Structure formats: structure tokens, C-alpha cells
């Protein structure tokens, strides 16, 4: 694949399911202990896109979440803040205000999230609105129905158009891998997204089960690696949904480390779309520091 040449998306990069899952299971056997564990827990914390995406979201809820984002655990102020807050477009300005003076980004889902079942113009307007409200990052969804029909060019053009509408905001493209079903589809959707201008590729909306899985993430990381080797451009990765435990987060970091290497082990290039993960990371950090197993009563649940 030569530089800047867009591959033919009708050809399929073949992926063996069993092989992918065996690779993940082998990587899961990495034993992360002592200093490396502490380092990874803090790193994971700094990579979180703290998310609330509910119909019942309110300004009050978002403001409280932003406080959690800034200071995840008051007794340990030296801990890093999370990478971003992820909300619906109408909550962007609230979040932006609440995070003023920090480096925490505001990410907004857009493009008729989570289904994407709307005309392109509506999606563009949705995106522009969020950007105008101050979103630093846009999390768009792809049209899965069109993808499964084989309308790859439509998907490509849609992403390119949204990217355009993003202006300076970073674009994360949600593939909703749970609806794509096969790893080959995941790979193909990843390639389309990257070549169409995605800054990040993201697994899931969190509204469909399964959400992020490690094998899916591995397939996407390998797509990012191949894209990087072909074009020299780094693309970020965001697994989202279903990552609740520190242990899982560490396993994801191992995947990143051994697939893409150290350059990607930063919030600039890797994010977790999660909410309850924050507290589990904190509990583990405190456990590592004190040697005492922790209870959730001692950690704020914003």
C-alpha cells in the first residue's frame, strides 16, 4: 500500500477469529505487578473519557462529573485528572464551563448518536452545533446499516464530510463493532474511518452489547499499526463500554504496548470510554499505596 493511496474497501483483509482470540488470551497472561502496576493504573486513569450519555442527563449531573474529572480522588491530589468528559451536544457548554482552566477536553457524541439513523445534513448540523458549543472532540457513529449493505463509499464520504465539519475538533469514529459482528468487518470499518480522516477510532457507543472487547480492540490496533506503517500517520484508539475493572484496563494497556508500542501509551493516543472504571482504578491505586483492600463507600460515585 503506497502513501496516500486509498485501498479498495471491497477487498477484505482476512482475519482469523481463533487466532485473534488466542493472541488476546496470551497477552492477558502478562503479569502486571508492583511499580509497573502503579504506573499503569495512573496511566489508565489519565486516559479516561469520563462519560455520561443518558436521556436523563442534566446540567447538575454533568457539573458533578466534571468535578470528578478534575480531582478523581481528593485525598490524593497528585493523581492525574482524566483525559476528557464525554457528553451529549446539549451538555457541551455546561461541561466546557465546568472544566475551564484545566486541560481536560470536552468530547461530544454527535451524528444522531447512537444509531446514526438520520440524514447526513442532520448529522452535519449536529456536529457543527457541538463544535460551536465548544467541543474539543467529536465522537461520531457510522451508518452500520449502510456498511453491512456494502455501501463503503457512502461510509467513507460521510466520515470525510463530518471531519470537515469538525474544523479543529478531533474526530473519533465509533464503529459500533457489536453490530458489525465479524473481525473482518471491524478491520474494514477501521480502514475506511482512518483513510476518511478519523483522528481516533472507537469501538462502541455503549448502547449495544457487546460493547468493547479485547479481540476487537486488538484488530483495531493492528489496523492502526498497518495504517501508520503505510502513511506515517498515528491514529488514536478508544475502546468504550463494558470496561469497568482496573484489571481489564491493564489488559488493554498490554494490548496497546505490545501492538503499537510506547508511542501510543498516552492520553493523546489512547482513551478508555468509561465511567465506573475510574473508581476501580482509584481503589486499586489506594490499595497499592496502603496495602489495604478498599471499599466503594470511600469513593465518590459521580
Amino acid at each position, binding site marked *: 500500500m503506497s502513501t496516500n493511496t486509498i485501498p479498495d474497501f471491497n477487498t477484505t483483509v482476512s482475519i*482469523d*477469529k*481463533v*487466532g485473534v*482470540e488466542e493472541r488476546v488470551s496470551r497477552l492477558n497472561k502478562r503479569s502486571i505487578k508492583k511499580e509497573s502496576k502503579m504506573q499503569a493504573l495512573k496511566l489508565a486513569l489519565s486516559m479516561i473519557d469520563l462519560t455520561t450519555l443518558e436521556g436523563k442527563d442534566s446540567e447538575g449531573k454533568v457539573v458533578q462529573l466534571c468535578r470528578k474529572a478534575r480531582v478523581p480522588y481528593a485525598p490524593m491530589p497528585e493523581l492525574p485528572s482524566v483525559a476528557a468528559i464525554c457528553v451529549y451536544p446539549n451538555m457541551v457548554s455546561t461541561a466546557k464551563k465546568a472544566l475551564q482552566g484545566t486541560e481536560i477536553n470536552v468530547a461530544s457524541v454527535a451524528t444522531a448518536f447512537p444509531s446514526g439513523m438520520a440524514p447526513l445534513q442532520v448529522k452535519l448540523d449536529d456536529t457543527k452545533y457541538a463544535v460551536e458549543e465548544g467541543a474539543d472532540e467529536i465522537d461520531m457513529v457510522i451508518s452500520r446499516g449502510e456498511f453491512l449493505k456494502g455501501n463503503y463509499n457512502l461510509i467513507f464520504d460521510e466520515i470525510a464530510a463530518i471531519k470537515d465539519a469538525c474544523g479543529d475538533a478531533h474526530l473519533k469514529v465509533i464503529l459500533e463493532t457489536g453490530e458489525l*459482528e*465479524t473481525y473482518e468487518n471491524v478491520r474494514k470499518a477501521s480502514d475506511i474511518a482512518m483513510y476518511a480522516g478519523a483522528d481516533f477510532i472507537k469501538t462502541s457507543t455503549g448502547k449495544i452489547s457487546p460493547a468493547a472487547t479485547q479481540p476487537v480492540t486488538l484488530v483495531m490496533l493492528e489496523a492502526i499499526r498497518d495504517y501508520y506503517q503505510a502513511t506515517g500517520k498515528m491514529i488514536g484508539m478508544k475502546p468504550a463500554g463494558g470496561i469497568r475493572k482496573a484489571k481489564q484496563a491493564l489488559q488493554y494497556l498490554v494490548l496497546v504496548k505490545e501492538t503499537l508500542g510506547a508511542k501510543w501509551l498516552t492520553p493523546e493516543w489512547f482513551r478508555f470510554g468509561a465511567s465506573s472504571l475510574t473508581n476501580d482504578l482509584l481503589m486499586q491505586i489506594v490499595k497499592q499505596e496502603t496495602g489495604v483492600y478498599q471499599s466503594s463507600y470511600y469513593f465518590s460515585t459521580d
Partner: protein
Amino acid sequence: MSDRIEILKTYKTYVGGKFPRSESGRTYPIRDVDDHIIANACRCTRKDVRDAVIPARTAFSGWSEKSAYNRGQILYRIAEMLEGRKDQFVNELQRGGMKTKTAEKEVELSIDRLIYFAGWTDKYPQVFGSINPVASQHFNFTSPEPTGVVAVISSDESPLLSIVSLIAPVIAGGNTCVVLASESYPLSAVSFGEVLHSSDVPGGVVNILTGYRKEMLDHLTKHMDVNAVLNCITDKEIRKLIDENASISVKRVHHYPVDDWSDDTHENPYLILEFQEQKTTWHPAGI
């Protein structure tokens, strides 16, 4: 009895689908029970062994890749051809001193034995193969494949029936072979070569040499391009020699001492199995 002077048959070897004389051009006399010379057989030696292994090796890939159904039909065809030349074989056996009844029985049994093994070609892989329920996400199966070139050291008893009983399971399983015919009664073996030749058996699948065993056996069982040995000789020293020679290239050896070739214990698929390798194939199962 007419006064006509009989045309005596020249017995040659059967190698690579042709009937060459021995490389040296030498022969040795075959005598009947009364010590009369009834024919001269080729006295093959080292170079004939060499020349017989080459076509056996060449024929292996074609023969082993034929469909099992096709191999079965060819074996059946051999039986058909033998049936058609029954009288000739009875006659030949009689000249070697066999009683008519015995000779007839021997030919008939030979025909039946061919049919028995003809029927196995597309069944033994089912009986001896398996699907293996491995604990991982893989589909796994084992199926028999022929070993390769088999050296057949045949018996001096029942000269036709023995050679048929030895060759049939070997080639039914997709192997090719180089056969050392009985030293004292090689005529039926050579004539059987003619039957094979007229039975759609590709040249080189069966190669039949006659001569003194001691001049061929060592070279044949040492030959690096021979994969296995089927031996009927019971002599301890010879057996040991075969085993030792086999070890230089890890050949499979099956010693098969037989008293009575007419016994139906010789009709069993485990003989085929002696010259089969089991191949196990794994493949992931996932979408």
C-alpha cells in the same frame, strides 16, 4: 496331444510398466518337481533393484492421489483379468508341480482376494481415520495416507496366492511396490505382472523382480528411497538383516510369516494399515 512344437514363454521382469530383462542379461533355471528345467527366469541384481525403485517412486504420487474409488476399480479389474486367464495360471502352477485341484483353488482364491481388497480402498480410511474432539476451538481429523514405496519380499509358498495377498493390501492403500518374487517359483509372479499390465494399473505401481534373494534383498532393504518392507521370509538372519537395513532411513518393517495362504485370516484391513501413515490436520473453527 498334438505334435506341434510348443512355443516356450520367455519370463522377464515387470518394471515401470514394461517387461525388461535383467540389467546383467543373466538368467537362472526354474525347475519342476522332477528337476526338469521349465523356464529361465531373469537373475536380477543390484542395478535391477535400482531401476525398479525409480519407477515405483515416480508412480507414487499419481497412484496415491487417485481417488479411492478409482483404485478400487483398478483392483477389481485385476481380478477380472485374472479370471479371464485362469487356465494359464492353473497351467503354470501345475508345471511347477501343483495338483490341478490345488492350482485351481489357488487361482480362485487369488481372484477373490483381489476383490476383497478392491472393496477396502474406499472404506479403510473411514475405519482407521477419526475426527478428534479436541478441547480448543479447532476442527481436527486424522486420516491414513500411504507410506510410499514398499519393498515386498515374498514367500515361496503358494507362488500366485502369496504374491497377490501381499501386493493387494499394499497397493489398495495407495503405495507402490518393488516385489522380490519367490526365488524357486517366480513364474506366476512374472505372469501376474502381465495381468497387472493389462488391468489399468499404472506403470511403476507394481514392479516385480526375479532372481536370487541374496543378490537383491540387501540393496533393496537398504535403499534410501524405499519407505517400508513387507517380509515373508522367516529365516532369523534375514529378518535381522532387514531390520538393520531398515534403521538407516527409519523404514517401517512388517514381518509376515505365513503357513497357509489360503486361510481367510489374510483377508483383513489391518494389513493395509501396516503401510499407512496417519496424518492429523488441525484448523481453527471461527467466523
